[in-house]
């Protein structure tokens, strides 16, 4: 039974539109009618208005975005031989390479069927050099590309010519682009395009967002002096409600863990009962594990494939092609398939693990039955009991249409520095003009001239107080007042380092044969890429899951990780680096509601409800606005468990700060562990007794002032901050990216960003890059902003419960102990342990 749609359009302008006959015929020929929002956007475009279209997945957003472009190009006469090449007419930018490729496929159909003479090409990191060269000489009318490619295009000398007939730029999945540094760079790119073409129309295509005005600002030129200008808006609501369920498992749901292994039998049955299933997970390693589990039970040898960003590109393309011709029954995927790709006949989406955010869930579920008038079918498979609550919260949110995209932050300074260099690579620039252009983009509208000048100095000579690098400047102000690149090799350097996605250093994974001692096999087929940090934790002989296989590490040569097929199917190293995305504030609120009020728990499975009831009996369930803190002894240690539900990142920061305080209060803390839901600290002294005697108070422990000096001191040593610094330094162009095949041999040839960070911090703490790093820390890895909001919320509302033993709610986090990575104190103790072993050995020998 089809759940019929009701769609409402907001933003009808009554403007006229022109849809020529070939187009109306084409729609009619398919038994379709152009949808009202498609016509609405057509009329807006034909009136030259920049517009944001917000519509649910499956509403035909893409065709809507391209309609005016196709109409306009269809009316153009063919280029006569010898006539000068025209530049690009429409530029389409998507966050994913695969999406650009997919959209091309989708657009080719109407172009072919209407027999339109329109050249349409993609340009991504995978496009061969010869084709890129040709595109520069003979640009297609429509170019489909990614943000990084746009940055490269505008940094070329002939950029003004290349874009001199540009009419429209279309940003697909704009809601996902704008939240990151990629969005900042793209906004600067758009400002540049507007300088080339002042009348340029910008079209944004977006899923539902919390605050459409932020996106509307982003699309249009912002006037100076803090005034705000918005694009037009077309908003389409409604569509069929998805049918989402939580897997009703007859198995026991585990307390903790992320594999959802318990449910594999039921997941496999669901795959068997559908045509094509998309299975989403949050991390690469979860994808590997799930794929392995499914193959182990694949008695019917169903065609099931694996797709994630670390796999070799040819392998990914193969899966995508098989998918588009419906040759697969299931694909296990990570976020590489998150956005807007039309996967034809998918009739079921299974989400393994908690979705971590309601918007993310809505997006992923939109993949099934990619048509607006049929409901999507989806099953959520929580991996543990807290995730059951989280899934239920997400499910409620999806029905409510609630959105939890984070508010946009101001443009980052490292991105700004990269853009300044790119601008100089294209042509000499005037600093005043560039500043005006930059503050016309929404993310940088509030940028001060002073900071801009600092970024300019940084780009030129590193921007240090100690001005010793003037003679080596990369860009320099010349006599005519413009800034110029001083040597072509700096432009080359810029091109190799463009973009804002800084991945952990990756190693190529190559398959080889299991080798005896001494053999030095260089390696066979490439399987993909893997994080260097993960491989460093292994020793040769260890086995792990990758590319759907169990592999044995043979060794590392330069940037190649050599592996062989392992005979056993059980990988020795269970790799779980934690979810990539922290629990969203919105879902956290919902989960706290479930805990506080039994009427919000009625949808939960019986075993989860019972678990919470026992918690109520043995300890207490916190009220909605309370923070529950439990203390109890266990195996000669004393534990303190708090349940803030603010996500793993904020909890990690909280854990570091809390341990410092406990240390000062002489509570002798030994360590802590953080999950998305809770944090546990353990130590040698009885926390319950200390609290009872008021030797310490929770109010003092959780006081907001921990975000002051404690934070500063801790940050100085935090490896998380060092990682953030490395990213900023790479984006800003201080440190070069590592390029496969161009690795320098031996560490003494390169400088570790950690060393640079230490030196910079002690000698110039207010340097631009450290400013950028702490701004990132507030939002990103450390989530200080969220921690601060939480501390404020729970002030005076901390509920302490001293217990004799572990509570039901504490079990999941207690099971996580020992799985976390170690901080610098723990590193020292590991070293001491190793040294002691040696001494003891010596003594006994």
């Amino acid at each position: 039974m089809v759940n019929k749609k009701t769609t409402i359009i907001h933003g009808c302008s009554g403007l006229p539109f022109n849809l020529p006959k070939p187009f109306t015929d084409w729609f009619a020929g398919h038994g379709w009618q152009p949808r009202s929002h498609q016509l609405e956007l057509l009329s807006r475009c034909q009136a030259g208005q920049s517009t944001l279209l917000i519509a649910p997945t499956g509403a035909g957003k893409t065709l809507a975005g391209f309609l005016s472009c196709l109409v306009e190009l269809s009316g153009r006469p063919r280029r006569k031989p010898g006539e000068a090449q025209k530049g690009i007419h429409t530029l389409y930018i998507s966050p994913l390479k695969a999406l650009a490729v997919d959209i091309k496929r989708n657009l080719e159909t109407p172009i072919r069927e209407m027999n339109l003479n329109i050249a349409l090409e993609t340009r991504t990191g995978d496009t061969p050099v010869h084709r890129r060269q040709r595109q520069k000489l003979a640009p297609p009318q429509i170019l489909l590309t990614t943000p990084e490619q746009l940055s490269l295009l505008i940094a070329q000398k002939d950029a003004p010519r290349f874009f001199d007939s540009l009419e429209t730029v279309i940003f697909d999945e704009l809601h996902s682009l704008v939240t990151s540094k990629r969005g900042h760079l793209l906004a600067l790119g758009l400002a540049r395009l507007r300088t080339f073409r002042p009348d340029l129309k910008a079209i944004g295509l977006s899923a539902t967002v919390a605050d459409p005005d932020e996106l509307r600002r982003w699309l249009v030129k912002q006037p100076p002096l803090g005034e705000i200008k918005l694009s037009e808006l077309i908003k389409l609501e409604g569509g069929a409600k998805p049918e989402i369920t939580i897997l009703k498992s007859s198995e026991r749901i585990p307390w903790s863990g992320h594999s959802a292994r318990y449910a594999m039998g039921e997941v496999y049955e669901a795959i068997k009962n559908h045509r094509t299933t998309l299975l989403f997970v949050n991390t690469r390693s979860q994808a590997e594990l799930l794929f392995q589990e499914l193959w182990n039970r694949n008695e019917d040898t169903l065609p099931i494939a694996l797709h994630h960003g670390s796999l070799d590109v040819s392998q990914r393309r193969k899966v995508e092609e098989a998918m588009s011709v419906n040759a697969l029954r299931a694909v296990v995927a990570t976020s590489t398939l998150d956005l807007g790709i039309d996967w034809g006949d998918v009739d079921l989406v299974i989400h393994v693990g908690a979705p971590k955010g309601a918007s993310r869930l809505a997006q992923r579920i939109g993949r099934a039955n990619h048509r607006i008038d049929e409901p999507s079918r989806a099953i959520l498979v929580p991996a543990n009991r807290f995730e059951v609550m989280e899934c239920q919260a997400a499910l409620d949110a999806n029905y409510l249409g609630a959105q939890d995209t984070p508010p946009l932050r101001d443009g980052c300074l490292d991105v700004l520095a990269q853009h300044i260099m790119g601008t100089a690579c294209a042509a000499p620039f005037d600093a005043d003009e560039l500043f005006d252009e930059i503050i016309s983009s929404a993310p940088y509208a509030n940028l001060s001239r002073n900071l801009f000048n600092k970024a300019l100095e940084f780009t030129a000579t590193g921007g240090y107080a100690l001005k010793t690098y003037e003679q080596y400047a990369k860009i320099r102000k010349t006599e005519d007042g413009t800034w110029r690149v001083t040597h072509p090799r700096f432009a080359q350097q810029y091109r190799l380092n463009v973009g804002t996605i800084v991945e952990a250093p990756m190693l190529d994974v190559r398959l080889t044969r299991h080798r005896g001692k001494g053999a030095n096999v260089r390696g066979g087929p490439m399987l993909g890429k893997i994080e260097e940090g993960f491989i460093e934790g292994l020793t040769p002989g260890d086995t792990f899951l990758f590319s759907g296989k169990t592999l044995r590490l043979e060794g590392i040569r330069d940037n190649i990780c050599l592996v062989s097929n392992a005979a056993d199917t059980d990988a020795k190293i269970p790799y779980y680096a934690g979810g990539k995305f922290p629990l969203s504030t919105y879902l956290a609120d919902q989960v706290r509601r479930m805990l506080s009020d039994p009427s919000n728990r009625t949808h939960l499975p019986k075993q989860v409800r019972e678990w919470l009831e026992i918690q109520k009996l043995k300890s207490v369930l916190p009220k909605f606005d309370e923070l529950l803190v439990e203390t109890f002894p266990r195996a000669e240690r004393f534990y303190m468990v708090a349940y803030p539900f603010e996500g793993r990142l904020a909890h990690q920061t909280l854990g570091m700060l809390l341990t410092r305080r406990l240390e000062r209060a002489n509570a002798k803390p030994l360590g802590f562990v953080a999950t998305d839901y809770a944090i546990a600290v353990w130590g040698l002294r009885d926390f319950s007794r200390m609290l009872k005697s008021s030797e310490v108070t929770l109010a003092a422990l959780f006081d907001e002032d921990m975000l002051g000096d404690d934070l500063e001191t801790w940050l100085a040593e935090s490896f998380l901050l060092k990682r953030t610094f490395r990213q900023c330094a790479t984006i800003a162009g201080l440190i070069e990216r590592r390029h496969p095949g161009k690795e320098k041999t031996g560490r003494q040839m390169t400088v570790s960003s950690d060393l640079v960070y230490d030196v910079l911090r002690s000698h110039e703490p207010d340097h631009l890059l450290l400013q950028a790093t702490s701004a990132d820390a507030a939002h990103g890895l450390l989530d200080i902003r969220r921690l601060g909001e939480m501390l404020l919320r729970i002030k005076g509302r901390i509920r302490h419960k001293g217990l004799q033993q572990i509570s039901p709610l504490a079990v999941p986090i207690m099971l996580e102990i020992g799985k976390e990575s170690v901080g610098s104190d723990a590193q020292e103790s590991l070293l001491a342990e190793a040294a002691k072993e040696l001494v003891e050995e010596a003594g006994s020998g």
Partner: protein
Amino acid sequence: MEALLQHEQGGCQDIDFQGEHLILDCSACVFWPDEKTLMVADIHMEKGSSFASKGTFLPPYDTGESLIRLGAALNAWKPKRVISLGDSFHDDTGASRLSDSYVEMLESLMRGREWIWIGGNHDPSPPAGLGGLHSTELCAGPFVFRHQPVSGIATGEIAGHLHPSARIKRRGKSVRRNCFAGDGERLIVPAFGAYTGGLSLKHEAFEGLFDWNKLKAWMIGRETIFEIAGRQLVG
């Protein structure tokens, strides 16, 4: 004597090498008490400006930082003689790029003591205008000091060049630190400079230099040296 008292308080490791007593210091230098001699390797001064000339603007404070650390070590040990085991400068013209204030700092460190620059692969020539002795190799007592360890057996060799670092794995976690490395025949000193990293002892560059059964890595902790056996190390 004062210096030796101080070393009792930690941050150091006493070793016996070729019958001589040596002290390995947490700051990445070696002290030879009987000869009041301090050894450092691979300071790589002016690495920052060397990178800057190629368009990578590392903070220009590395030389200053290294000199401050060196000053602290000299203050602690009060050596009569300092041997810098090569690659004291990141390139052969590094010394000429030193700012006046760094030249002054360095001169004050060199004042009143014997100073020997061993030539390195980065800085084969004597540093311009800085004084001190210069040599490619130096013998003293049972030791031969050179920058680059020679292949094969080299009894009593104390060298730098390789920036040794070591990694251990415990309970699934790994810790990497710069280290002193020795097997009783030779000793390789870690890099001292603010911008110098480490190369794993398991790297092929170390092949054939040590008897792994006797190899020890003295890993540098925050305030302690940790003595680790070669077989405990991972790559």
